[in-house]
């Protein structure tokens, strides 16, 4: 099927083009046979394939390869759902995402919503603490020397290690999960903010000193414009990691959230649900990251030129 479709335009083109060239006055579309006109159209389409369509074609090709490999692997390993089953499951999940049959049976939309709320709550807490702390560490040398080593030691620790501590503090899994995300998002936000301050060109500092900029004018015209791109990059990194960690921490905390959904699906032997959830988690992460990337580009463009 595909092979004939591709080969027809080439054949049609060679037979049609001379005819068109011989009678340039004749209206090209009207008197042609149906098969022939389809040939011309597909030839034009083939020639006029825009960059976007070509990219989409490559994406489809890549997806086909992945699905094919998956199909083969699913055939070899017992219990692994095939692409088709998983797609059906995903379709079913999306058909009714917000049903609520009590604490142990909620739609995937509700679970994702809960996880998003936790993720954003932790993320905003981290921004609330991390940006001012980063400003402090980036602008006050003794503060940097006092706290940077501590930050550097805590940073490589998996944020999940903090879960027991928060559990003891809050005596309740959901807030503990939020604070794990807080820890996750805190370090990149803090470090990027401090680094953003280091990027303020000395010339601009000197201008502010010579013309006696007040605290507010300095913040508004020198500090924020220079530090903002780096701060937004830090937030973007934080958000990305936070969205990864939320799944893990909810597998530990249980009860609600997309991470719990994944773990629960495994316990009930429904790997198709797990795979469908993975696709959804990935898509949401991609959307969030794209939004923050757009934001960071918006602020970065003019910050870089000077």
């Amino acid at each position, binding site marked *: 099927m595909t092979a004939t479709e591709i080969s027809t335009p080439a054949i049609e083109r060679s037979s049609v083009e001379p005819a068109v060239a011989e009678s340039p006055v004749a209206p090209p579309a009207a008197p042609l046979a149906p098969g022939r006109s389809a040939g011309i159209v597909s030839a034009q389409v083939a020639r006029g394939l825009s960059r976007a369509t070509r990219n989409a074609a490559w994406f489809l090709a890549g997806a086909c390869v992945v699905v094919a490999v998956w199909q083969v692997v699913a055939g070899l390993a017992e219990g692994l759902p095939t692409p088709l089953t998983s797609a059906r499951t995903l379709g079913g999940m999306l058909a009714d995402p917000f049903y609520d049959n009590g604490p142990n049976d909620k739609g995937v939309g509700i679970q994702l919503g809960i996880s998003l709320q936790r993720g954003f709550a932790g993320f905003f807490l981290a921004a609330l603490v991390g940006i001012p702390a980063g400003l402090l560490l980036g602008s006050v040398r003794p503060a940097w020397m006092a706290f940077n080593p501590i930050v550097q030691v805590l940073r490589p620790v998996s944020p999940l290690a903090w879960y027991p501590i928060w559990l003891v503090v809050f005596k309740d899994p959901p807030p503990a999960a939020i604070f794990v995300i807080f820890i996750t998002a805190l370090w990149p936000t803090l470090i990027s903010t401090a680094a953003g301050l280091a990027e303020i060109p000395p*010339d601009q500092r*000197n201008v502010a000193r010579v*013309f*006696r900029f007040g605290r507010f*004018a300095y913040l508004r015209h020198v500090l924020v414009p220079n530090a903002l791109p780096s701060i937004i990059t830090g937030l973007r990194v934080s958000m990305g990691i936070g969205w990864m960690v939320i799944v893990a921490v909810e597998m530990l905390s249980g009860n609600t959230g997309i991470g719990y959904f994944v773990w629960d699906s495994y316990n009930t032997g429904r790997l198709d649900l797990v795979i469908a959830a993975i696709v959804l988690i990935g898509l949401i992460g991609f959307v969030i990251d794209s939004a923050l990337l757009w934001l960071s580009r918006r602020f970065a463009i003019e910050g870089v030129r000077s």
Partner: protein
Amino acid sequence: MTLELRGLRKMFRGRRGEPQEVLRGIDLTITTGEFVSFIGHSGCGKSTLLNVVGGLVRADAGDVLIDGRPVDGPGPERAMVFQNYSLLPRLSLLANVREAVRAARPDWERDRVDEMVEHYLSAVGLWPHRHKRPAQVSGGMAQRAAVARAFAVGPRTLLLDEPFGALDALTRSRLQQQLTDLWGNESETETVLMVTHGLDEAILLADRIVVMANAPHPSVRAIIEVPIPRPRDRVGITGHPAYAGIQTQLVDLLVADHELALI
């Protein structure tokens, strides 16, 4: 207003922590209304000296006195123009000048601020371009905006750190002209200190040229008077009887210093 430099010394730490002397015992008195150029090889400390006068760099020893009072820290009565324009990239040229004036002169009425901003942006020919950002204009225009910003805060002393070094010859000579016009006629600014690489620029603009020497004796090597009457222009000035002599003198001093540094 008299500007006195008394026994200024400054040391920097080199890359391996070794001390590098950049200023040793600078003594200089600059009287009101003087235009003084500082010239010397790269690394002779002329920019450091200007930054010390500007209050951006603290000297290890010695004083900068204005009318007998020591200078501590930078301020708009000693406005500076830096080599690389140093405009704030997110503000328009107008806002760059206006924000500087507002910050430097909090006691000025809004009308006076606007008047000064318009006057100096017009004087350097940037009023039609006032809404452009620094990234949207040429280097020459950016530096004109920086010059306008410095004049607009009404400084008594103007400090220029190789302001035209990065510009092409034509733009440079036009800016030199605008600078002397502003200094001579259209502003309150009395005294100008200018660091430069250009011998011709120094002779064209200055009343006195301070030649500075590199290490091992990083200090004032000679002070040369330029007794050429104003207004000067860059073509006419070369025909003045004193011009060639000053130029030779400067070249000799700089070459000698260079050879000294090589030993």
